[in-house]
């Protein structure tokens, strides 16, 4: 089984130095890319079927194609060559339960740099930023060193690899809010503004950082790109048995014997992952799982054979998200678990739109009341109503709709637990 993204990462996750990365084939993808036109590189990535690993699963090549280059863009915007274009690496990994990007950045920073450089070439960016989560200090160290190495080696800077292309690559430590992980909130944060989201359209590809064409890609997404360029789209597709190509960094957390991260073919089932994680700890039974971080719907214990790819998880009523699952066992209060999540989302709401700013704290306080035995039967109606009220389109961005995904599915799957809290006037697990 091929593990292109992580095969070279050392067990202690010490950063792979440039020489080691190069001898493992590193920067060959970049050389190949620069030998092609940006459009050809976009086509190559489009052909690979790579979809964004940040959570939304948007096809990466298509995302790039909306940047207006000379000759127009798929989005219909005219050529815009009068200033900077930006490529931004979204390394603000803050989805609860998710730590996949950290593994990639700590262990193999050059792989990310190469992916970012190829993406920058593909959209003809001249400035790239890595927007890094503040707590990721080890990543910051490894990336800073890698950038310096890449600069010295001529992969970054002026006239990259003897071409006419100049690219500046800078790292920016996020001030640290969940909203910064949303690409338009990230752009505002990078401009030194409040991390509130922007309305779309205009999409960042047309009017992004400082109003200039900008592409924001997730770390894992970009780490796939060098391999696609080096080995080709067909090779990449063959990495996965299903329709979603490539490998995926899956994670498992919860009360399992060996929680962790694995690079596996896209479409691995939840059951296989739980087996890899050594199964549930003694005496515990799995009651459900959040397949892709905190902002996804629960899958039930009956849905363990769902293939964890974008389309299959969507068909099962949830989202692949970041692909890092959180498992709920039968000795943990589902209300408490959801409370913990909603407290996080309520706190991380940017405060811009009313439903999210006011609705999520109400949800969190209601759940808290249930947990404290102060719940009322009408509380379940209020929770249920918020699931519908905080739907996409009613809120400004996707934060609140994501936040109520675990709530809505928990109310459906674990209804009796919620009701028990109300009737017993206490948390039955306490």
């Amino acid at each position, binding site marked *: 089984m091929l593990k292109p993204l992580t095969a070279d990462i050392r067990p202690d996750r010490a950063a792979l130095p440039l020489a080691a990365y190069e001898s493992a084939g590193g920067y060959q993808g970049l050389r190949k890319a620069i030998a092609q036109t940006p459009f050809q590189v976009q086509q190559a990535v489009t052909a690979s079927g790579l979809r964004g690993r940040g959570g939304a699963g948007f096809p990466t090549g298509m995302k790039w194609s909306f940047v207006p280059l000379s000759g127009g863009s798929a989005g219909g915007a005219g050529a815009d060559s009068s200033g900077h274009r930006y490529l931004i690496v979204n390394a603000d990994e803050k989805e609860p339960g998710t730590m996949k990007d950290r593994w990639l950045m700590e262990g193999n920073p050059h792989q990310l740099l190469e992916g970012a450089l190829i993406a920058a070439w593909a959209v003809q960016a001249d400035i790239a930023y890595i927007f890094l989560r503040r707590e990721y200090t080890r990543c910051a160290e490894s990336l800073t060193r890698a950038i310096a190495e890449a600069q010295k080696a001529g992969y970054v800077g002026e006239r990259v690899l003897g071409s006419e292309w100049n690219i500046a690559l800078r790292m920016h430590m996020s001030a640290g809010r969940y909203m910064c992980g949303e690409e338009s909130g990230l752009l505002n944060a990078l401009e030194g503004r409040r991390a509130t989201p922007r309305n779309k359209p205009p999409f960042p590809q047309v*009017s992004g950082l400082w109003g200039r064409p900008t592409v924001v890609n997730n770390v894992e997404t970009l780490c796939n790109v060098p391999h696609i360029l080096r080995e080709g789209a067909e090779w990449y597709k063959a990495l996965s048995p299903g329709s979603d190509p490539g490998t995926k960094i899956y994670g498992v957390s919860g009360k399992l014997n060996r929680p962790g991260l694995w690079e596996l073919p896209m479409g691995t089932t939840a059951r296989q992952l739980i087996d890899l994680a050594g199964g549930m700890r003694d005496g515990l039974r799995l009651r459900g799982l959040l397949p892709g971080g905190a902002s996804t719907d629960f899958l039930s214990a009956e849905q363990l054979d769902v293939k964890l790819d974008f389309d299959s998880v969507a068909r099962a009523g949830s989202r692949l998200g970041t692909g890092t699952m959180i498992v709920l066992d039968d000795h943990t209060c589902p209300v408490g678990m959801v409370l913990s999540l909603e407290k996080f989302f309520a706190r991380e709401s940017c*405060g811009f739109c*009313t439903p999210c700013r006011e609705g999520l704290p*109400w949800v969190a306080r209601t759940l808290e009341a249930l947990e404290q035995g102060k719940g009322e039967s009408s509380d379940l109606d209020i929770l249920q109503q918020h699931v519908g009220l905080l739907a996409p389109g009613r809120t400004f961005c996707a934060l609140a709709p994501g936040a109520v995904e675990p709530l809505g599915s928990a109310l459906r799957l674990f209804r009796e637990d919620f009701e028990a809290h109300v009737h017993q006037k206490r948390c039955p697990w306490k």
Partner: protein
Amino acid sequence: MKTFTPATARAGAIHLTIDGRRYDVDAEGKNLLHVCLSLGLNLPYFCWHPALHSVGACRQCAVKLFKDETDTKGRIIMSCMTPVTDGMRLSIEDPEARMFRGQVTEWLMVNHPHDCPICDEGGECHLQDMVVMTGHAYRRYRFTKRTHRNQDLGPFINHEMNRCIQCYRCIRFYRDYAGGTDLEAMGAHDDVYFGRQTDGTLENEFSGNLVEVCPTGVFTDKTLKMHYARKWDLQTAPSLCVHCAVGCNTIPGERYGALRRVRTRYNGEVNGYFLCDRGRYGYEFVNGGRRLRQPLVRTGDSLQPAAAADAVSRVGAAVSRATGSGASAIGIGSPRASLETNYALRSLVGPANFYLGVSDRHLAILRLMTRVLREGPAPIASVRHAARSDAVLVLGEDVWNTAPILALNLRQASSNAPAAAAMKQKKLNAWDDAAVRGAIRHEKGPFFIASVEATRLDEVARECHRLSPSDIAALGFATAHEIDASAPAPAGLSEPIQAAAQRIAAALKAAEHPLVVSGAGLAAPEVIQAAANVARALKKAGRDARIGLVFPEANSFGASLLAAGGLDDAGRVLAAHGGRVLLVAENDLFRQMAPESARSLLASAGHVVAVDHTTQATTEAAEIVLPSCTYAESSGSMVSSEGRAQRYFSVFPPLEPAQSAWRWFDEIAVRAGKKAAAWKGLDEVIRAMTQEFPELRGVRDAAPGADYRLNGSRVPRKSIRESGRTAVTANVSLHEPPPARDPDSPLAYTMEGASIGAPASLNARFWSPGWNSDQSVSKFQVEVSGQLIGGDPGVRLFEPPAQEAGMYFPPSPADQPARDGMLMLVPRYHVFGSEELSSLAPGIASRTSPSSISLSRAECEKRGLREGDRARVTVDGAEATEMAVLIREMPEGTASIAPGVPGTPVLPLPAWAGVTLASVAAEAER
């Protein structure tokens, strides 16, 4: 009532169906909220503001949009963020949409205190209105509310953060629109705080608009709080701001004989939705302790109260004697008095004996500006024109300080060109505020400023040039020449000025609606001439160019049209024939000329009669003083910098024996036997004036005459909800007193009668059923942000002649060589402190900076001056004055002082001044 929708389908019109009813609207590119409000439909909103546009934050304006006739499910969309398209089908009344809007209100009310009874916003609160409109009545949220600590934000704004519903309008207005930096959104989630980093006065000169921009009671009028009354208890009338020449329309509110506050009266062509802080808070002079309440007659060294009849008799007799003696009475008018007052004085003394109470030099500037505007190198820009211009050249004028609302609109104009380019290139909607601002983050439009000192508009200008007045003129003349080679070129241009002129000319010429702004601020005729040349050149080049010239005082423009000469002329006439009668209308000569000159002018008159509403140096020096009315207790007309004749109406009746100044002059004329009968009312004054001055015809049409009736009644100044009408005087008599008569207007001091449907010039308040706040203004507009129904008030007096007649001004001869060691001293005006009446308001006075002289670092070094030192300033042998030194970026050889500010001497500016070190500032203060 609304006329936004033409009944007949027209080409290009958009057809849409709202709740089953079909509308054809001319609304290409507009959003659905704009369309619905323009149609007069009730749709609640918070974060949207007609001048700030859409950001989609509050989610209150949700409606249901259906794909087509077969779609019965539809989906919830935000109307403010959705462009209108042909064939759209939507529903405001859809149950799910109603439910969602009700839920949004419930969310907003989660943390809102139920303190309406003690909240200053109560009764005119947009949040209250929207809560009622959405039907949210019972709260289900049972947990604690978040609370905040409030801040002291200075003399104008009260802060009560617990009421905040986080609509973000305050910071969008304050930062994005007005360019303020000291109000911020802080914190996140349900704990967002709108305030300053620390307690302190809000610095921006437009901060008072927060009171109206805030949809609830977070930011309220602190001066109103000192003497609070509810909106419905305030007697109001359509009025004008008297504190500069922009002519902003206002709604002052009165109760129990005191003016309580001033609010914006929307006028699409003039001030739109906003006022500056001087205009909003200057009103307190009306209630001030320095008001003159009764006639005074000098006995020895003091002025003693006298009966009005006696005082008028004495003056009338003196005028009569003077006329008989052949040395007729002299009248000095005022740039801050109404046309009617100036005209009445002129009629009393005779045209040849009427002088405008400003220096001859100043009058020459006013005359030059009038000539330029009358000849019309280009049409005069209204403020709305200014806001829509796509290239701007400001020559010499610090507009931010001399015409603040014009500056606020110029600030928006600076982004017009880049915004238009971005909208086209990136397919953005003009109303998508965050997207448009985001797309042009670092771009500045073709906006050029040439000034002696830095101005607050510099931050939006592409180029700022710090030049001496003569160099500013040279830059203007050169720019005109670059645009049109037939415009005369100035001689001896420096290389940088030549290059700048080329760049500016190219940018102005590339624009469709370029604008040139200048004014009396530098008192430099050559700068005004240069501005006229640029406008003429642009017009000749086929551009839709406009010109704006800033006049110094509220009625400088109007009064100058009536006057035979200026103060120096009047002084010469008085000196030539001693013992004359001098009548001064609402003017403090000690602000217009050096004190010794004013003293000698007054001393050369035999009798000095001063008419004013407020005690000042001239009234104190007069023999007889007659109490007139402020704008709040009188009606009259003024001409703004736009040449717009506008009418203001008394808000409350004057306290007898005070009366409008023109009435005093008219009574004196009758008493002196110059007239058979007194004018019966304002209309008669206007009729006489317009007969004599056909150019002022528009004054008559600026508002309906006193005989106008709406449905047979006068238009009420009081609201139908006014409380305590019969109780107010019940301690004196159980009989309700009859309302005061008003012979000057069709308004009545009562609550009887209907006001809906009154012409905009008579509209005393914005109120509509269900819309108790200022947001009801959309019910009075043809279209959101369009003109008021029936037309925006005021009549433009000057349009360029059809035939191109004017000539270019020749560039002024090279500046007289700098005098050795002397500095060219120019005026530097301030929003707070430079204007006479507003400075009497405690809030404005507290915001006034101490008198100072600014000069460049190089000039300071030459003189061994450091910031904070006291400098000795001497002009033409006049007594030296000491002022604090400010080091500013300005051209060498120049210095500036702040006229009007306490401690600044009245000097004939511009002037050559000697500046030397007087005393060193204490080291500790450095």
